[in-house]
């Protein structure tokens, strides 16, 4: 693993978002701390969304390139 390069931020946000979301669901399902659980689900969804968005964008750009190449 090369530690000299800065890691891609979206690669960090995906697991962190999933972690927070599941913690939030855990609190909502099992404990009386409903508000904190809701907050964690919201924060986790935001973080996971921030991590997943570049993947979706890359795929869209890739599909657009493939389409334009096909048209030619």
């Amino acid at each position, binding site marked *: *693993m090369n*530690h000299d390069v800065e*890691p891609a931020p979206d690669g960090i946000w995906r697991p962190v978002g*999933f972690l927070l979301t*599941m913690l939030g669901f855990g609190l909502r399902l099992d404990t*009386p701390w409903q508000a904190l659980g809701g907050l964690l689900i919201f924060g986790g969804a935001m973080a996971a969304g921030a991590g997943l968005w570049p993947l979706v964008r890359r795929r869209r750009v890739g599909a657009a390139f493939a389409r334009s190449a096909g048209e030619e």
Partner: protein
Amino acid sequence: MSPACRPGTAAAAAGVVAVAVGLALRGLAQTPAPPAVEGGDAPLIGPRVRAWYRGVLSPLEQRLVLGRVHPDALTGAQLVVSVFAGMAFWCGWIFLAGWLTILAGTLDILDGGVARGGGRASARGAFLDSVADRCAEFAIFLGLGAFFRGSWVQLAVAIAAFTSLMVSYTRARAEGLGLALQLGRVQRPERYVVIGVGGWLSGLVAHLACPLLGRPTHAVLAAAVVVLAGLSAWTALRRTQGAARALAGPSPS
């Protein structure tokens, strides 16, 4: 003291888990398979899954190395999270406990990776990590035992705790006698996965089936404990057998 049934929240959580599993399977399919370990006692979690999970954690690991986070801090965090997981099992917060167990296992992977990546791997760190691992496992089994108090599953928890300890002990003792004993169906990552995923699924199933059954029941977690007890006993026996066979030759002294 699990509160009321929450099937709606459980269904939402199951939806998120389904999306995550879909993404994970996609990632897994794209992960090249490292060479498998030869022999009949290869770990249940194969090299491909391990490589994929390390790949998922790799950006986080890099960030921790760049942030100069000390691996001992991650070992300490693993212990604290395991104690919380044990407490959550004790309270009957099974979904949360399962998830915290998975988190503790993840921190266990991260501390070694950060130590190696940051050039801080040492015999002292490895020793502290092993001690913390045993304490962390004890905390989780203690919580499980308390949750299943008064039930036959408590006996399965006791057997799982003992045999898990024996899996680690047989390896440590064999290594002390100069024998490398790496193989075994159920090692520490497998234990975290069986208990963590078992608790996690049990929490989901309990809340989803709650309107039908009238109360949350944790048969999935009980099954996971029984499976873990059996597999750990098998692993400890196989290791003992393997070490005894390898050490059967004449003593060098």
